């Protein structure tokens, strides 16, 4: 939909608030009815037997197993990490999840519980999650803390107030600053690469699909490695049409600029059926390149048990019960 953007054109877009606004408002509008109809149509795809088995395992390997409650304790996080490493203790063929997602103060606990060199990553929310209503200095310090404690990925929230007021430059600069905070401070866990940055748009507060498209582009232009729908603290959280708009944005962004950005719907995805619908959406919108834990994640907690129950149902031929899986 956009012609390729070279570096000169790119730096021109991001050079001032006015040019940024011109670019974002110049993006084509989203056909709301069309997006919702397409998402609903794709949701009716029937995925059965071996394809379903494949989809369930893929979905498990894409989960960011999340606990973001005020009542989180180190014990809870350790239990979550054990589950991340071995989702079903009775079945070693279940893949590991992609990451665990915790608050910054529990990153060190999670890192220790997962063990050094674990392929399960630790993601930390930061920047005054979930509202993001702190000064930039606090957001940077919050991010540096999480990265120094060993976070492999940082989930930041954008300032929705600034975005909705049209102060795109401010949102852009904050993302750039947080991205630098991810890269800069390594502390004891220096691996030279810094943390991946996921930018939470909190689409439930953005009101329109046009805003979702603009916020997606804004985050990607500012250097986001991932764009994420929601904090999970606002209803509605992730929905299929919103994710569709974001998947179109990452597809178009790669076509225009050549850099691939991941997508993470989070919040409200509780059943295997939901998860498989998202995978169908990814395949049909962004394409197969995104059907990989490096490029698509599902932020969830209770979803994992439902996937495990479905998996067991397919293997044993009888319906599984929640009594046989961990409570979390």
């Amino acid at each position, binding site marked *: 939909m956009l012609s390729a953007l070279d570096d000169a054109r790119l730096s021109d877009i991001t050079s001032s608030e006015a040019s940024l606004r011109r670019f974002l408002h110049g993006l084509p509008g989203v056909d709301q009815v069309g997006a919702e109809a397409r998402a609903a149509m794709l949701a009716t795809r029937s995925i059965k037997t071996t394809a379903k088995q494949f989809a369930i395992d893929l979905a498990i390997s894409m989960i960011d197993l999340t606990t973001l409650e005020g009542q989180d304790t180190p014990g809870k996080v350790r239990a979550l990490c054990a589950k991340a490493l071995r989702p079903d203790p009775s079945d070693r063929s279940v893949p590991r999840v992609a990451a665990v997602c915790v608050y910054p103060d529990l990153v060190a606990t999670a890192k220790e519980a997962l063990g050094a060199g674990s392929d399960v990553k630790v993601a930390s929310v930061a920047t005054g999650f979930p509202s993001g209503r702190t000064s930039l200095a606090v957001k940077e310090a919050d991010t540096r803390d999480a990265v120094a404690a060993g976070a492999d990925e940082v989930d930041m929230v954008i300032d929705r107030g600034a975005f909705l007021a049209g102060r795109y430059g401010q949102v852009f600069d904050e993302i750039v600053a947080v991205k630098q905070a991810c890269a800069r401070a390594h502390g004891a866990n220096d691996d030279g690469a810094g943390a991946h940055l996921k930018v939470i748009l909190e689409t439930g507060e953005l009101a329109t699909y046009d805003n979702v498209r603009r916020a997606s582009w804004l985050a990607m232009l500012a250097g986001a490695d991932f764009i994420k729908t929601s904090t999970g603290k606002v209803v509605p959280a992730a929905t299929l049409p919103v994710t569709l708009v974001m998947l179109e944005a990452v597809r178009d962004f790669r076509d225009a600029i050549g850099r691939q950005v991941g997508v993470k719907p989070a919040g409200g995805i509780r059943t295997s059926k939901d998860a498989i619908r998202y995978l169908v959406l990814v395949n049909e919108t962004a394409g197969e390149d995104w059907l990989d834990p490096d490029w698509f994640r599902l932020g969830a907690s209770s979803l994992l048990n439902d996937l495990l129950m479905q998996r067991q149902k397919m293997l044993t*031929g*009888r*319906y*599984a*019960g*929640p*009594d*046989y899986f961990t409570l979390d």
Partner: protein
Amino acid sequence: MAERLAVKKTYKLYIGGKFPRSESGRSYQVSDAKGRFLANAAWATRKDARDAVVAARKAYPGWSGATAYNRGQVLYRVAEVMEGRHAQFVDEVAAGEGVARGKAEKLVDEAIDRWVWYAGWSDKIAQVVGSSNPVAGPYFDFSVPEPTGVVAVLAPQRSSLLGLVSVLAPVIVGGNTAVLAASLERPLPAVTLSEVLATSDLPGGVVNILTGRVGDTAAWLAAHMDVNAVDLAGAAGDAEHARQLELAAADNLKRVVRAPEAEPEWTAEPGLERITAYLETKTVWHPVGI
């Protein structure tokens, strides 16, 4: 005046307090004892059974946690609403079972009385089967009956209302929630009972009613890991089917109420066996003198 068009009913399932269509969208014709069309009933299959178990599990904490007195009051209320549907039940029993009107009226009276009888046990069963146990130590030791969980009930195939009430009421009176597979050929009293339950104070999901071939749902319910007990009354007379269901139920150590060789005479005085079959005894040792 022109002759009125017949209103031919197509009933639906009763799951989680709502009346959904069967997942497959199919239904089947229900005929009376002489083969004349009565209505269409939904044809439930395994996915409806799955949804019903989820609904029953969801309703379980609320229903089992309600006070026995409260459960009793709700069940009395159900009997009141049944009484209001008396004539409809009589029509359905007479047509479905092929009995005379007078006999059908007696059966319906008896079914409602049976429901009241079981409702009364709600806050009395603990006194009868619970106990305070003498022990050799400074402990107060007592045993109380607790509900088992989600119970799958295969309703009797022949006795469409009295048999139905006789297997359903004892399950829920103790605090269990139920998934009931109704009689294949005589499902209408069960459908009407679901309408009664939906309009009394029974919380949605405590009773879920599936119509259709028992063979389509029974095996899935018997093998379901989230079902805690199964009543095989509906498999009476089919020993091989009952045996297979018992085998499937063994996987998660379900409580099984075995299928009788032939369907019993439901007019016989009931005992407490059907209530206690779905109760588990919890014994507590409590130190005294501290």
